[in-house]
């Protein structure tokens, strides 16, 4: 079953065509990775799917309904976004930053409840950041900030989570930790990734090239040596990890 889909999706800024005729169906519960070279349209696709930009052509459907017909609030109750490097100068506390995730569920008159409190604490716990809750945003490292962003998205209690290169600028330990956390979450996840070996751990992969969807399917079927040469311009072959039998990509420049 498709929880989020798009058809004929296109987007352009002035003359530059950033996305062209994308058809995609995200299945319930899966982790769908989006890969592609820089500028291939990964971030743009996520923004369109989240309804943060209006498409030039085509449409996005969330749970069968057109995105344009839904209010921002009801979209936010179903779908959460973790942007790349969203930052602030405010001396906001971690708990309050995560509490923002409750915004779509609260109205002007509804007070903050103990249930909201519990959801925020659970979200912090889920990304292993409970100990940070009293710290201020500015005092956090890049990896800690990213985990707080993910906790905020989780506090929205979404069915679908969109993440834009969440492991960027993190050290390797935190990259792997965040990836593992994200994939263990009981939600449908759409994740733009830079590292192809990390992308291999997704359920399915979508490959973007110059704003077009050029491949979609199981990681090992999609990331063939020919595809990697055509799209990424690298020589590739697979090795088998003697430790657990997993396939690993070895990449070389042409």
């Amino acid at each position, binding site marked *: 079953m498709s929880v989020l889909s798009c058809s004929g999706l296109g987007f352009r800024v002035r003359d530059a065509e950033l996305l062209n005729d994308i058809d995609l169906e995200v299945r319930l519960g899966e982790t769908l990775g989006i890969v592609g070279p820089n500028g291939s349209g990964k971030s743009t696709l996520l*923004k369109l799917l*989240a*309804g*943060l930009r209006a498409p030039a052509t085509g449409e996005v459907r969330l749970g069968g309904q057109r995105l344009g017909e839904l*209010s*921002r*609030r*009801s*979209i*936010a*109750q179903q*779908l*959460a*976004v973790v*942007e790349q490097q*969203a*930052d*602030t*100068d*405010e*001396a*906001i*506390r971690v708990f*309050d*930053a995560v509490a*923002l*995730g409750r*915004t*779509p569920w*609260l109205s*002007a008159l509804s*007070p903050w409840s103990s249930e909201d409190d519990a959801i925020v604490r659970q979200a912090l716990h889920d990304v292993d950041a409970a100990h940070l809750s009293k710290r201020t945003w*500015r005092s956090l490292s890049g990896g800690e900030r990213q985990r707080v962003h993910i906790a905020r998205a989780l506090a*929205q209690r979404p069915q679908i989570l969109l993440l834009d290169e969440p492991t960027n600028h993190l050290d390797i330990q935190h990259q792997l930790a965040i990836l593992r956390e994200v994939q263990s979450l009981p939600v449908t996840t759409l994740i733009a990734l830079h590292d192809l070996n990390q992308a291999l751990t997704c359920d399915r992969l979508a490959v973007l090239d110059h704003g077009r969807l050029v491949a979609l399917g199981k990681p090992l079927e999609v990331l063939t040596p020919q595809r990697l040469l055509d799209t990424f311009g690298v020589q590739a072959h697979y090795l088998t990890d003697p430790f657990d039998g997993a396939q690993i990509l070895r990449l070389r420049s042409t």
Partner: protein
Amino acid sequence: MTATLIRTLLALGMLSLAVLAGVAIGETPIDPLVVLQVLANKLWGAGYALNPIDEGIVWNYRLTRALVAAACGAGLATCGVILQSLLRNPLAEPYLLGISAGASTGAVLVALLGVGAGLLTLSAGAFVGAMTAFALVVLLARVSGTSGGAGQIILAGIAGSQLFNAMTAFLITKSASSEQARGILFWLLGNLSGVRWPSVWLAVPVAVAGLVVCLWHRRALDAFTFGVDSAASLGIAVRRVQLVLIGCAALVTAVMVSIVGSIGFVGLVIPHAARLMLGTGHSRLLPASALGGALFLIAADVLSRTLIKGQVIPVGVITALVGAPVFALILIGRRNAR
């Protein structure tokens, strides 16, 4: 809930004390007890025997002045909070963004054209001027830099202020008699001496309404912490909220400017202090800033009347003397935060 009630009562208590002090202190000090007796006479017909001159000074001059100062301070501080949160810029406030200058031009234009010099027409003119100025400043900031640098909009604001101040000066020189010109120039610097009860009936409801609208949107204001896209993904109808709140800020600024002229830095100093003391949540930041603004401007007004014997310094001069150093401190603080 009870905690909120206690805080509200505490705030109103502080405000009442400040107004009382604002009325009692002046070139001729008036016993606070006499002030209370005047209030009792006027509000409940208590019938205390009082000197009618004292009674007149308290009721018609000092009280109106203190109330308008409170409303104006609260309104401008609220505007500061809105602009800082929506533009994500700690230096944003009506005066520095040229909104006050635009409002002045609008009000002066209405006054000189003689479309009717009533408070409401002045305010309407000021509102149009304020919106025009803000639109121009935002447009200039957008066109001149897509990087969204924090300084960009302040620079645009300076350009806007200069333009509208020049237009005001031009209008005055061209069309005003020398007497009118003197009056307008004094009013432009921020001046509370002309206010009577009709001003109170305009300023107080507008300040309260502005605060209520902002409190209604407090969660939306919180949601802008990590930027516009983040707010949208948290379910905020970004365009609508921006329009409502910027319109609100422009309206409050316009009304205050048309009553007391452009008073700067209240919207900068007070929200900054409130953030330092209470943190970033708007449910506390907004009422605290409004209260702080009210107290600050009452105090500034008292200073403006008592600092030099026999002279009244424009209250805008006092706020700038406090505000400009704070502006400098925030600038330095931002550099260190990088």
